[in-house]
């Protein structure tokens, strides 16, 4: 036993925290989803078994929320991957000095505190004469209430695209120079080189970015909360994760419905656990996530 005293000691703080705030919450979400816990019954919740799930299905808005979630995830994903690919291809086609500047600019939305980033969106989408978007388009409206979905997808997309951009850029950089020479000798144009050489090599990174972002978009709601708060009107932009959060944690209807919110979150937690286990098997995380970080200067 003494042999393992050292590793035990080194791992102790990390393990305690991970158990307390990762492992226990996974079980706790499932447990809470089987209770009727709310503000009224916080101290002694009653076990209701699967009772919360039929209640969820009877919610008249659940279909709309489900559709919203599909819409939000797919549109944002399309923008993220497409824009990330475009940025990576274009920035790999100019001199390194410029490429780095462009990538730094696109990282800004990710680096800025989310509240500041959303504040900028609120400012740019105001009515004329204040909002830049209204000025440019000549249509004076509050674009967040006027076109909530467009704003939502773009606001999330400008943050999300940089992830693909970085992964794809380093994948392009690692393509063997010989392939480009060979293509040039064969007289391939740049467009042909991109289509026949670069894109096939990017197949795995593209799949990885798509899979990774699908999962994180499915559960993310921070920017939606700050931009539209699920509105305007009834549930116009409310997604699954936001609804779960509001049911359980914000005073939506006066009485916070903890158990019901947990039941919604349980879906996400189960999906999250299964999908991240699959990732571990399919993707060689070692190569895709870790390698670029080991670049020591």
């Amino acid at each position, binding site marked *: 036993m003494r042999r393992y005293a050292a590793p035990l000691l080194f791992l102790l703080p990390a393990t305690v925290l991970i158990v307390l705030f990762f492992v226990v919450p996974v079980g706790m979400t499932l447990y809470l989803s089987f209770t009727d816990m709310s503000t009224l019954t916080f101290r002694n919740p009653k076990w209701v078994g699967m009772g919360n799930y039929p209640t969820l299905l009877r919610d008249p808005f659940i279909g709309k929320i489900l559709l919203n979630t599909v819409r939000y995830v797919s549109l944002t994903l399309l923008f993220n991957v497409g824009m990330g690919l475009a940025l990576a291809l274009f920035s790999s086609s*100019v001199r390194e000095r410029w490429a780095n500047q*462009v990538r730094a600019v696109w990282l800004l939305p990710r680096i800025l505190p989310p509240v500041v980033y959303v504040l900028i969106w609120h400012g740019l989408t105001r009515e004329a004469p204040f909002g830049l978007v209204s000025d440019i388009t000549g249509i004076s409206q509050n674009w967040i209430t006027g076109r909530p979905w467009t704003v939502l997808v773009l606001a999330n997309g400008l943050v999300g695209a940089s*992830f693909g951009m970085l992964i794809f850029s380093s994948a392009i950089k690692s393509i063997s120079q010989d392939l480009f020479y060979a293509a040039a000798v064969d007289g391939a144009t740049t467009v042909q080189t991109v289509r026949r050489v670069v894109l096939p090599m990017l197949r795995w990174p593209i799949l990885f970015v798509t899979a990774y972002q699908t999962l994180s978009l499915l559960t993310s709601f921070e920017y939606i909360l700050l931009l539209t708060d699920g509105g305007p009107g009834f549930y116009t932009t409310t997604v699954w994760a936001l609804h779960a959060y509001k049911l359980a944690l914000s005073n939506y209807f006066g009485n916070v419905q903890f158990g019901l919110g947990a039941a919604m979150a349980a879906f996400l937690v189960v999906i999250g656990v299964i999908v991240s286990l699959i990732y571990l098997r399919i993707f060689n995380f070692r190569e895709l996530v870790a390698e670029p970080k080991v670049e020591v200067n």
Partner: protein
Amino acid sequence: MALLPPRWRLVLIVLVAFCLPILSGVAWLFLTGSFDRVHGLIPQGSVALKNWRFLWEAVGGRPPIRVPLVNSIIFSIVVSTSVVLISSMAAYAISRMSFPGRRMYLGLVLVLHAFPAVSLLIAIFYILRRLGLFDTLLGVILVKTTLELPLGIWLMKGFFDFLSWEMEMAALVDGMSRWTLFRKIALPLVRPGLLALWTFSLLSAWGEFILPFTFIVSSQNFTMAMYLQTFLSEAFADFGMLAAVGVFYALPVVVLFMIGQRFLLNIYSGGVKG
């Protein structure tokens, strides 16, 4: 340089166009914070010092600015320092020691790295209530630190794997304890990694919104993100002051990013935001 088409300057123009929305957003923030009114990106009227009056007076029932400012500084420094310490300890054990369950531990760290932690907020709320840590800075610090650990352990493991064994072997043979060895030999050798992880966690904690927003209610424990959000959620927001608070809050981030840009680019490709 993988691709360099003959007309790459044309491509550069397209790229600059791509950057314009982001750059004009940042420009808007600075202009609106500084002037009386801004139409689009064109300032009207004079430079407005009144946008910055939140610095010397409490605005509309909010605590004075130093309260959220001090909280945010404490929050981000404690979080980033704990992340660096705790994850490098764990990473060192995983990288250098053999113990039963080592592979499983590593697998767990990897799965957690992909796992979307926001889906756990509801359960974490319950746990913090039970521990008596709800509405305390300490509670949010613990949660935020934990959420950064998978990335931190994974990153630091990569750095420790990179070190050669020989020096450590010699020290062990000379009878140095594991702990002294870790502190005196291993840690100084991975300083670039520690610095990168520290900066990354600092930026991430400084910007953190959803955790304090969910787990803190009393205004004495507000962080800067929450302070700014109270302005944003007002029905008739004073955009001049909003932008000024925004500039004040975001400035350290922008400065730190410019200094550490080169090595941060690497970490963000393993980041966790969607």
